[in-house]
């Protein structure tokens, strides 16, 4: 019985460790006219990351084609997307929901190293 309990405990501990390792890193991003905060982040290639994005003032978009980012942002809820970037480079995410005169400059740099 003791032996069975020991094996079970080892399984539980291993499962928790695997679960912890597979948890993506979470990066919180806020969006408001006409900026994302932070406006630049760096990810590791192959790293699982959850981007959790909240609009502070009105509806916005969060779009980056190569990384597969495409969120509708609203002040009523937090939107999130989990990615595992496979290619390194400098990617520019934009607000693609027109939000006023500075809309064209509302962007965020995502470096993948």
């Amino acid at each position, binding site marked *: 019985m003791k032996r069975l309990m020991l094996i079970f405990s080892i399984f539980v501990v291993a499962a928790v460790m695997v679960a912890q390792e597979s948890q993506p890193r979470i990066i919180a991003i806020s969006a408001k006219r006409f900026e994302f905060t932070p406006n630049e982040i760096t990810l590791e290639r192959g790293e699982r990351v959850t981007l959790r994005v909240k609009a502070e003032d009105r*509806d916005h*978009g969060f779009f980056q084609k190569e990384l597969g980012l495409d969120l509708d942002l609203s002040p009523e809820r937090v939107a999130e997307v989990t990615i595992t970037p496979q290619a390194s480079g400098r990617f*520019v*995410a*934009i607000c*693609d929901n027109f939000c006023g005169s500075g809309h064209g400059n509302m962007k965020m740099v995502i470096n993948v190293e």
Partner: protein
Amino acid sequence: MDRREFLKISGMSFGAGALISFAPAIAAGSPAARVRNWFRRQNGEEPAPFTFAQLSDAHVGFAGPPNPTGTKALERAIDVINGLNPQPELILFTGDLTHESETPGEHAKRMKLFQSITSRLRAKKIMRVPGEHDAALDGGVLYRQFFGETHYSFDHRGVHFIALDNVSHGKPMVGAEQVAWLQRDVARFPHTAPIIVFTHRPLFDLRPDWEWFTRDGSEVLNVLAPYENVTILYGHIHRHDVHQSEHMTHYASRSLIFAFPDPATTADKKPLAFDKENPFNNLGIQIVADKGAVRVDDVELTLREFSGTNGVQQIAKPGIII
């Protein structure tokens, strides 16, 4: 007429940039007769030569370092167009007629000012589509009050014109309802019909991270794909550009307020600096066909001659005051 000859003619006919001659080469001569007969057999209607002008991105109301002259480039383009002989029969505005304002009443004033300035055009058939600065903040409500529907179609001398709205959803998209409307609209035409689509944003992925794209542009192009003679005119990118997708050619017109750089040369989307010594450099209309004087055999040479020019100054005929 073989397909190669047809494409060559249509490529020349629509031209690039802003003053566009439709089918000048079919006005006379033996190759012209073949083209006219071919269209008549295929479409039941023979297209007649005519010219029209595309103007884009006037941003009336904009004030800032990239162009402190305000509406001067628009006014100047109107003067140039009014001086042309023959007059273009149509003027197409491909969006961003005005620059938005959130001050109550101010955006309406800018739309009135645009109407006032463009009322000086001698050509009276003026068609428009909105840009995001005209219609994205209010879903096109104010724009419709001044200019009518944001998407529609009409025929002119055997050519079918289609105005598409890819701005008033807020996001760069046409939307399923408009795509379905487009399907119904073109269904009655034979696949050989000459079709000119005019819209604001590019319908292909020119530079998505500069918002130079339309999310569902491929759905529009799929609807148009069976049609053999489609030209797409757009604005938004504030620079001249020519792109070929399958057999469709996409032409971007210059802006009338400031120019953006070639995206191949820079990572950042920033307007080109204002040059007070040459304030209209890279702005305004670009004439690419000269009143039907080009011959079919000269088409490719003519396009090369007029590509990459620096505005109407370099190619205008003597006597045009610019």
